């Protein structure tokens, strides 16, 4: 089933790069990981929260925009599939929505831009570090279940940055 035509959604609008008309920037792992490290080291938990909330809010708005454009995507399954496709096609990695319910969810990621980037630049870390992906998941599920921003909390129970086999995220209501 063709959910949406990714190739035609990624375009240029003059000097801007857009996905479905929304401006995006291409950045590499050096910048994304440098930003994460700067925020974590300078602001601690507040910096982690800023990374999480920024990804949550941004993905909430982006997916909302896409679902408004693709009105035929109505079922939970197709919405989750579209979200995974978006994650993958934005070069963010692979995400598996393994068990998703309105009040809780269990999600895994076998590969991600942030994990690859962190390990390439800094090697193994002691604590879970996929704050971006946690926020991204929260925003996605809030749109899919039509909940307000901040409705879900996403915890990372296992993380490949710690050399776990995969990243595992648990979602619950705040």
């Amino acid at each position: 089933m063709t959910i949406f035509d990714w190739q035609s959604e990624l375009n240029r609008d003059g000097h801007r790069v857009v996905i479905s008309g929304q401006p995006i920037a291409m950045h590499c792992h050096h910048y994304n990981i440098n930003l994460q490290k700067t925020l974590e080291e300078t602001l601690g938990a507040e910096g982690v929260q800023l990374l999480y909330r920024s990804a949550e809010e941004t993905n909430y708005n982006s997916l909302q925009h896409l679902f408004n454009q693709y009105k035929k995507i109505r079922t939970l399954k197709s919405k989750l599939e579209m979200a995974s496709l978006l994650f993958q096609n934005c070069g963010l990695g692979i995400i598996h929505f393994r068990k998703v319910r309105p009040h809780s969810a269990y999600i895994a990621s076998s590969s991600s831009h942030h994990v690859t980037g962190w390990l390439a630049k800094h090697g193994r870390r002691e604590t879970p570090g996929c704050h971006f992906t946690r926020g991204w998941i929260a925003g996605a599920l809030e749109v899919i279940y039509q909940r307000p921003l901040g409705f879900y909390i996403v915890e990372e129970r296992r993380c490949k940055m710690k050399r776990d086999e995969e990243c595992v995220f648990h979602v619950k209501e705040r």
Partner: protein
Amino acid sequence: MAIDVSKIIHAVMEGSKIRESKGIIPLFGVYLSLFSVYYYNRLSFEFEIKMGKQREAEAKTLLIEAAQECGYATFQGIRDSWEWQQVVAPMVENKKDQIFGFVAVAVAFGWGDLAVAELVPGQKLVLRASDSYEASGYLEQYGAAKSGKCYMLRGVTAAFMDLVYGGDYPDGCFTFAAQEPCCRVKGDPYCEFIAQRSSD
């Protein structure tokens, strides 16, 4: 031969549509991600706000240095890549052309309509943008400001000079430093970035 910006943009756009099986975009020697400019702007500007008035200068320095360090590593990877060798290198005749090539890649990445306004080899680089995503995002979210807000582009401008005129990689980073005397958030018609040797 002049640098053909449209050729570089085309190569980046085509390359960014190719993913390997793990959902990673390996392009121009780096792992690329595509994400909303809103995310990057929110991170930078909320970081600055959270640092507060007392740590405002520190916040700016950290953001600029993060970008400069990243720009240095990123564009070194780009310059070493197979794609650069295939697409850009045939157009590069001298060191100045490398800078023009870097600027074309930055435009291709969606960072803004950057253009070289002045380049004095080994001494000075002036870039201008009338629509950087940082200034546009700041104006949209927060309105006008008294100082420049394009921290990423400021760091990257210096990184371009570091790579071309700052000595052998990886020792040349921070040989240059950049200022942003004009920024659209201050009411200027364009944002301007001037990189000069750090000791100047």
